């Protein structure tokens, strides 16, 4: 069930943990270099005017494209609001 949760569908301000990236390494590379790795905490902060997510990743704010956010499998973190 949790397996189906994608970052793109996480409500604003809810902290989740990254489980898996459904991306070829070439596309995942710029993400990984910026600390987006399995186990990291992600929290959607807002959407940009074009509807793309702005996400807090372990203290760093990243802007992603929404198609990319659909490829990031996450699970909710117990205890997080």
């Amino acid at each position, binding site marked *: 069930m949790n397996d189906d949760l994608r970052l793109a569908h996480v409500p604003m301000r809810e902290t989740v943990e990254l489980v898996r990236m459904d991306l070829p390494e070439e*596309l995942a590379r710029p*993400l990984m270099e*910026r600390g987006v*790795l399995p186990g990291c905490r992600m929290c959607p902060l807002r959407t940009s*005017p074009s509807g793309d997510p702005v996400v807090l990743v372990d203290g760093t704010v990243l*802007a992603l*494209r929404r198609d*990319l956010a659909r490829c990031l499998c996450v699970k909710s973190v117990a205890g997080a609001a």
Partner: protein
Amino acid sequence: MPSPLSVAPTCHDTAAPPPSEGSELRPLVALVGPPNSGKTTFFNQLTGLRQKVANYPGVTVEKHLGQVTLPDGRTVDLLDLPGVNGFSGRSLDERVTMDALAGRIEGVRRPDAVVLVVDATRLETQLMLAEPVLEMGLPTLLVLNVIDEFDAQRGAVQDDVLAKELGVDVVRTDARGGRGLDRVQDFIARITRHRGWVSALGSQPDADDGRVSLPMIDVLTARRRRIRSILDKAAYRAPGLSGFTEKLDAIVLHRVWGPLIFFAMVVLVFEAIFSWAIPFMDGVEWFIAATGGWIAAVLPAGWFRSLLIDGVWAGVGSVVVFLPQILILFLFLAILEDSGYMARAAVIADRSMHRVGLQGRAFLPLLSGYACAVPAILAARTVEDERDRLATIFVTPFMTCSARLPVYALLIAAFIPDVQVLGPFLGARALTLLGLYALGIVAAVGTAFLLRRTFLRGRRADFVMELPPYRLPSPRSVLYRLWDRSKIFLKRAGGIIFAVTVILWVLAQFPQVDGGPPTVEQSALGQAGQFIEPAIAPLGFDWRVGVGLVSSLAAREVIVGSLGTIYGVEGAGEESFQLQEALQQHMPTDAAIALLVFFVFALQCMSTVAVMRRETAGWKWPIFQFAYMLMLAWGGAFLAYRIF
């Protein structure tokens, strides 16, 4: 792509002394850090104006080398390496940083020590760089920068635990406020005191150790876990998000306000480069003319005076005149970038840029292109993905740079009647100018679209943009950047323009008639115009325009002066009525419109060609670019001549 950087590893101690480096006797300290860690501010604070910028051999990565005077009076060299997030070695910046630390770059000796600067407010992510840096085996100092914000946002970490776990020294700094830098100097002084001994300690890392072959995600995930456990031991408490940045982002990235602010910013930049810069440009123009006049008065008449004044002074002057505009552009861009707004602008622009096959980071180079393509192409370095970068560079010359404006101004004033078209605000002349700008944009969009389906096809790199906290730009940093950029602009543009103007001058002087210069028609330049006349006749151009086109190969605006010479109008500028009248007599209106269209498309700028060759590391792209734009120009002008 093989790079001249990947030279075989040589033993540090036996390597020949690099000739281009500061001083072989001085110790070398490397500055490493992720982008946006405040590393450059840090570098500027430590070195002041005692720094110089060059390129690493054979690549487009800039090498910043400066000198630091230590408290004990000794001087060390400080090398500011490109900002990197890791050492996967796929980007040019990463490879340069990695090779520099390993002492594998020709002309750069292996550093004696490393100062690793990280932004403390994003410690967890930025520490990912610590491990690969430490693996280089050099004495390392970990600098927790921006510590003022870290404290203000109630972050906490035990430095001594961090130091013990990582096996490095740790200091806290606030580079912008200048705090903590003395302790960095102390470290450098201590480490470099027994330099030979320290260097011998550092083991030479292999070029390719086995780990590179492991899937990157495994390497990085394991690294991340280790960093997390070290931070846990050091009782790390992440700082909260900056309330100020949060509040500002709520507006700047707002659905309605965001695009409005973006649009206002673009208008402001345009206003600055086209209105505020004009008085300064007029001043520079006056200065060049005046000094040229004085020199002409002092020198005896003859070929040397003619070469110096008509060739060099006028030619190089035509480039220097754009310096105020470029400085103002860079002032704005530096402020926008250092404050953190540019990252947001790239995010806002990304969706529409993506649609035409570019990405958000291309926005800044393209905006710069409205002033001048040369700095714009240099700015394209911020576009991470290589294909995206090439596409950005390729479409940049379609942006209406300010060198086209004198040409547009002259032809519009001479041929387009000053009548109202749409109400009292939009005349035929303004409409023509807008149309020329729009034509450039259409060409850029179409070209990007085509490139993406032909030469630059393949996977789309994704767009990931880090949004750094908003910060007040440091005036010092901004000024250093301006200084840097203007030096590069003058060197790149000035050098090629100098060469081309001398060649053009020679072509205009020979073959000599009765020991004096020939008429334009008889000169080699005039013959070149006549030679290409059959090719341009279908566009409605005669040999005189041909001479203008040949001479404006150096720089577009040169055509104004050379048309003046051909029609025998003294001191012709774009506002010269005599020149306008002469043009009206010799050129039908449809040919003038064709000429305008020609200038929208043609790559009449050797500085751009030169900088493209540099930035794409070869002649392939600039030659292709030149041919492609010439083809478009010819086709466009042909159509315009037929239609109008």
